[in-house]
């Protein structure tokens, strides 16, 4: 465990060392949040609510998106594709550590910095727009939300990992990964609440793991679901995680078995 803790600390320092890149990344993300907020504000207009979301709830949804994007959508897929394609993965395979554990440690270091930055951004935006935020009064909601988000993050990590692992067989796995990430952003509710979609399409998406990464966690936070329903959501999320983890590990084991490298 100490190995992964050290990896986490080093990755944290590396992320903080590249401050200009970090600031620019955050500026770009902030622009997306501002646009989404402006669009939803225009949609609500003078109405008391839109699609069942009041103005504070919608503002909270958009701001929560910024934090969730920073915590959930920061996997190591592209790095894995690069490391397999370049052969750098060989140096990890011969080390006495789990590649997944190592990648998770690096991923959490990145998440730590980005979540901290996103909280500052969200506070700034909330201050600038002077809008009321929806904050749950029940401590249980905060706990359920935290559990749900943690599971979301792991779900994304292993889903992305499973797709990236195809790089063991083809040098072209970047394309499917790009496609998956774009589809995921919409299907997870990372651009808009899925309530806007026609019922049939929403139900179809709810049968996939994607809405469990953003849409359902935010609904838990906004107390749009009862505590019992929240537990059911978390249970389903955990089942998806187990299934995706099993698939990712199976593909990984087969990929490593088929992998060969030459040279130093």
């Amino acid at each position, binding site marked *: 465990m100490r190995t992964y803790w050290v990896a986490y600390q080093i990755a944290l320092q590396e992320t903080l060392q590249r401050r*200009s*890149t970090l600031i*620019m*990344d955050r*500026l*770009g*993300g902030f*622009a*997306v949040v*501002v*646009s989404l907020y*402006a*669009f939803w*504000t*225009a*949609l609500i*207009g003078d109405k008391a609510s*839109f*699609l069942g979301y009041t103005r504070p709830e919608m503002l909270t949804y958009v701001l929560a998106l910024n934090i969730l994007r920073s915590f959930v959508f920061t996997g190591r897929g592209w790095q894995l594709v690069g490391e397999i394609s370049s052969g750098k993965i060989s140096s990890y395979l011969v080390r006495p550590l789990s590649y997944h554990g190592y990648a998770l440690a690096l991923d959490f270091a990145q998440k730590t910095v980005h979540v901290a930055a996103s909280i500052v951004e969200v506070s700034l935006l909330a201050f600038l*727009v002077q809008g009321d935020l929806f904050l749950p009064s029940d401590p249980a909601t905060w706990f359920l939300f935290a559990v749900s988000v943690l599971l979301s993050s792991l779900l994304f990590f292993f889903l992305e990992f499973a797709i990236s692992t195809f790089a063991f067989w*083809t*040098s*072209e*796995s*970047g*394309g*499917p*990964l*790009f*496609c*998956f*990430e*774009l*589809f995921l952003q*919409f299907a997870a509710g990372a*651009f*808009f609440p899925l309530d*806007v*979609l*026609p019922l049939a399409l929403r139900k179809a998406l709810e049968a996939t793991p994607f809405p469990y990464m953003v849409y359902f966690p935010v609904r838990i936070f906004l107390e749009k679901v009862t505590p019992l329903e929240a537990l059911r959501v978390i249970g389903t999320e955990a089942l998806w995680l187990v299934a995706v983890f099993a698939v990712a590990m199976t593909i990984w084991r087969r990929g490593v078995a088929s992998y060969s490298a030459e040279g130093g």
Partner: protein
Amino acid sequence: MKAVLHKYWRIWLRTASMAMQAQLTYRLGSFGFLLGKMIRLLFFFAFMAAVFNHVETVAGYNLVETALFFMTFNLVDMTAQIFFRGVYGARRTVTEGDFDFYLVQPCAPLFRMTCSSVDFLDIVTIVPVIVMTGMVFARLPVLPWENYAAYALLMLNGVALIYAIHVLVAALAVRTQELESAIWIYRDVMFMGKFPVDVYAPAVRWALTVGIPIAVMTTFPAKALLGRLSPAWIAYAFAITAVAVPASWLFWKDSVARYTSSSS
């Protein structure tokens, strides 16, 4: 002059052909990237259509008008991506020493840096965008020809303005060998151009019109077509481009003059 244009046309055609061949070599990867781009386009379109099932107008624009803004954004943005794609690899071109070769070739280094890397997938993607824009146009009422002329000219003006930004980013790469995120900030900020600038608060609207003129690139053409842009703003749009393009060239020349080679 004719001979020079012919030479650059041949260079562009040759590099575009090479890029296409390279992308066709990686069929699965290219298909994934292409599918991802289509998914992004279709999902946003579906989202807008779904939103207008619940509201009549957004910021005073109906569904067809909002779709016009979105399609105009895509046309301008994708045209720029097709022609100025090279800037995305500007930092790598400099740090790996390829820029040194550009400097000794009988071709303007700025042209090589910005225009000689063509993304064939964007050329494929722009076809459905043009078709969808045609469908939007068919649903608009008949408008005076001056509006269409202003639309076309302001679109070209928008592409020229985006060119100036790309030259600026390329110059920064030559000057600093860093700031690889600069082009991605531009991409993220461009996200704000997906919606008509009228949805934003006055301060943001001002920033997007005067500070980083995203509105001039994406919103102005559609507003001119709908007859909602005053002649003064049209004049402003051309004036800002008339200043930005030469200024970006000057900055580029100054950056190249300071360049001392960063390769071995």
